[in-house]
C-alpha cells in the first residue's frame, strides 16, 4: 500500500476534476500526478535522500508529497518559522535533501513546480523501504523528535476513515493548518481520495479565513482551537452560509468557544478530532450529532461529552492503563494507549516505541466513559504532583474557562519546598474585563477543592502558544517564576 496508489485511484476515478486550489486555476488529479512524476525526476537527478518542504501551504505541497513518494524518499515538512539554529540542525539530518523553501536554501515552490513541469516524468514509483513522511514534532517540552510515518500507516488511515469518491463536485475544503502539522499532511490525502477540492490559507487570519470561506464557497474546514477563538473574537460579520462541516483538533478546545460556535452556526456540523502525529492524524472523532445531542441534553453524562474526543475510528483500539500497565475500568483516568495499522509509534534513530502487543503510549492521560467516549486530560508530563496528589492542569483550566471573565487559562506546577509543587495560573481576561484574582480563586475552590485551587493567579494579555495552538507550559512556568 503506497501513497501513489491513492493518486492512481483518483486519476482513474475523477482525473479531470479540480482537487487542488482555486476553481479557476487549480490542479486535477491527472495534473497532480504528472507534476509529481516530474518532481520525482528532479529529486532522483539530484540524488536526494528526502524532499524537505519548508514553505507555506500551496499547490507545491501536494506535488512535493507525491514527488517524494514516486522518488522513493520521505517528504519532510518543516516549520518555516523555526530559528536559524534549529533549522540548520534539522537540515543537517537530511544532508542530500531537495529543499523547497522561500529563504534561498533550495528551490522556491514556484521554481519547484516549473522544474517539475519541465522534467521527464518518472514512470513508476521507486521500490524502496523509505518512509512516506517524517514530521518533527513541535517539541513543546524537549528537542524535536522525528516521527516516521510509513506508506502503510497513512494509507491505512485514509482507507479506514474516508470513502473513495464520495464527495459531490461542489464540495471544497479550506486548510489553514501548516504543512508541518500532521493534519496538513493527512488532509491532502483524505480530500484527494474522497474527491474534495482543497483550498489552502498560507497564513491564518480570521478576516481572511471568513472571506475565503465565502469567496470559494467552502463546505468543509479544519482549524485548531485558537483559530476558532480568534474568528469569534474578531467580532466581524461571521456569516458562513456555505460551510457544512468544521473539524477542530490539535489542542484542548475551551468549552465556551465551542458552545458559542454551535449556537452561532446552527447549520454547521462540528467534528472534534483527537490524534497525534504518531498515529497518522485522527484516532477518535466526536461527530456533529454527538455535539448537538450533548449541547441539548439535560443529562450531565451526555452533556459532558461535548468536551470529549468522541469514539475511536474503525481500526483503532484504545486502552486506558494505570501506572503498573494494567487496564483500568471506564470512568478511571489513566494513560491512553492505542493500536491500529495507522499507528506508527516509530521515531528516527530510535525505532519503534510500541509495546509487545503493538500498543503505542500516547503520553496523554485520559479516561473512557461507560459508552466509550474518550476524555483527554492532557499530557502525562504536564501532570502536577502536589503533596503526593496527581493533578491534571486541564481539570482546573476547564473550571477557570467557564468563568465569564476568563478567555484563556493555564495552570502549572511551581516548585515548592513544602508541597513539592504548588499550583499557579495565568489567566487571560476576556476583552473589557479585569477579574480579581482572589475572586477567581474562590470560583475554583467552589467547583473543586482547596488542594486544586491555584495559590496564585496572574493576569496576562495572552498565553504563549505555538502557531498551531499548543500551549507552551514551560514558558508559562518561566513567566510565573520570573514574576513570583
Amino acid at each position, binding site marked *: 500500500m503506497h501513497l501513489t*496508489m491513492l493518486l*492512481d485511484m483518483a486519476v482513474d476515478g475523477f482525473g479531470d476534476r479540480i482537487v487542488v486550489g482555486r476553481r479557476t486555476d487549480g490542479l486535477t488529479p491527472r495534473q497532480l500526478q504528472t507534476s509529481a512524476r516530474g518532481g520525482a525526476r528532479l529529486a532522483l537527478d539530484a540524488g536526494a535522500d528526502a524532499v524537505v518542504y519548508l514553505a507555506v501551504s500551496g499547490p507545491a505541497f501536494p506535488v512535493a508529497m507525491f514527488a517524494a513518494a514516486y522518488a522513493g524518499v520521505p517528504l519532510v515538512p518543516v516549520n518555516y518559522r523555526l530559528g536559524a539554529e534549529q533549522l540548520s540542525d534539522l537540515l543537517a539530518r537530511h544532508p542530500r535533501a531537495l529543499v523547497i523553501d522561500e529563504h534561498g536554501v533550495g528551490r522556491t515552490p514556484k521554481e519547484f513546480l516549473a522544474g517539475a513541469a519541465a522534467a521527464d516524468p518518472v514512470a513508476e514509483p521507486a521500490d524502496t523501504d523509505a518512509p512516506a513522511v517524517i514530521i518533527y514534532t513541535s517539541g513543546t517540552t524537549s528537542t524535536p523528535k522525528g516521527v516516521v510515518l510509513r506508506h502503510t500507516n497513512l494509507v*491505512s488511515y485514509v482507507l479506514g476513515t474516508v470513502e*473513495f*469518491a464520495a464527495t459531490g463536485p461542489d464540495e471544497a475544503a479550506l486548510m489553514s493548518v501548516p504543512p508541518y502539522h500532521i493534519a496538513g499532511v493527512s*488532509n491532502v490525502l483524505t480530500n484527494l481520495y474522497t474527491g474534495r477540492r482543497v483550498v489552502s490559507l498560507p497564513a491564518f487570519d480570521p478576516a481572511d479565513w471568513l472571506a475565503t470561506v465565502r469567496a470559494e464557497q467552502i463546505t468543509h474546514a*479544519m482549524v485548531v482551537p485558537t483559530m476558532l477563538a480568534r474568528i469569534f473574537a474578531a467580532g466581524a460579520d461571521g456569516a458562513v452560509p456555505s460551510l457544512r462541516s468544521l*473539524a477542530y483538533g490539535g489542542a484542548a478546545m475551551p468549552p465556551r468557544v465551542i458552545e458559542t460556535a454551535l449556537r452561532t452556526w446552527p447549520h454547521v456540523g462540528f467534528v472534534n478530532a483527537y490524534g497525534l502525529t504518531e498515529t497518522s492524524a*485522527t484516532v477518535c472523532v466526536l461527530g456533529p450529532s454527538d455535539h448537538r445531542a450533548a449541547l441539548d441534553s439535560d443529562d450531565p453524562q451526555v452533556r459532558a461529552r461535548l468536551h470529549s474526543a468522541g469514539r475511536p475510528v474503525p481500526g483503532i483500539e484504545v486502552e486506558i492503563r494505570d501506572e503498573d500497565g494494567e487496564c483500568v475500568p471506564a470512568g478511571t483516568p489513566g494513560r491512553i494507549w492505542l493500536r491500529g495499522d495507522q499507528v506508527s509509534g516509530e521515531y528516527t534513530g530510535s525505532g519503534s516505541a510500541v509495546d509487545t502487543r503493538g500498543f503505542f503510549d500516547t503520553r496523554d492521560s485520559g479516561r473512557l466513559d461507560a459508552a466509550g467516549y474518550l476524555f483527554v486530560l492532557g499530557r502525562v508530563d504536564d501532570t502536577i504532583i502536589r503533596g503526593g496528589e496527581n493533578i491534571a492542569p486541564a481539570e482546573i483550566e476547564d473550571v477557570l474557562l467557564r468563568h465569564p471573565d476568563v478567555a484563556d487559562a493555564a495552570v502549572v506546577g511551581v516548585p515548592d519546598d513544602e508541597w513539592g509543587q504548588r499550583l499557579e495560573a495565568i489567566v487571560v481576561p476576556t476583552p473589557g474585563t479585569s477579574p480579581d484574582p482572589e475572586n477567581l480563586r474562590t470560583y475554583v475552590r467552589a467547583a473543586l477543592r482547596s488542594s486544586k485551587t491555584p495559590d496564585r493567579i496572574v493576569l496576562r494579555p495572552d498565553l504563549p502558544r505555538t502557531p498551531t495552538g499548543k500551549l507552551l507550559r514551560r514558558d508559562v512556568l518561566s513567566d510565573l517564576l520570573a514574576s513570583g
Partner: protein
Amino acid sequence: MKAGIGQTLTSAVDATTVVVVRWPDADLELTCGGAAMLDAKDPTAGSGTPDPAQSAGSLLGKRYVDEAGGVEVLCTKAGTGTLAVGGTPLVIKTAQPLPASD
C-alpha cells in the same frame, strides 16, 4: 492462497486490481472472472480465460466482502470480472460514513 493485509492482487483475466483489507487465517481462493487472482509482485503471474458467467464487474474504490468468511478487499482498479471466494460472489460493503476530521 493466504493473503496478507495490504497485499495487492491482480486479475488474470482483466484489469481488476484489489488491495486486501481483511483476510481470515485460512487458505482461500479469491477469483476474478473465474480465474484465481495473482500476487501483483509475482513476476511469474499467469493469464487465463474469463468465465462469461462471471462478468458482473467491479467498481473502483468500493469494498467487497464475503459475508461468511471475513474477506474484505478494496477495488483499486475496476474490471469486468466477478470477484468471488470459493465460487461465491463478493458483495459491495455498505459504508458507514465518518465525518471529515481533517
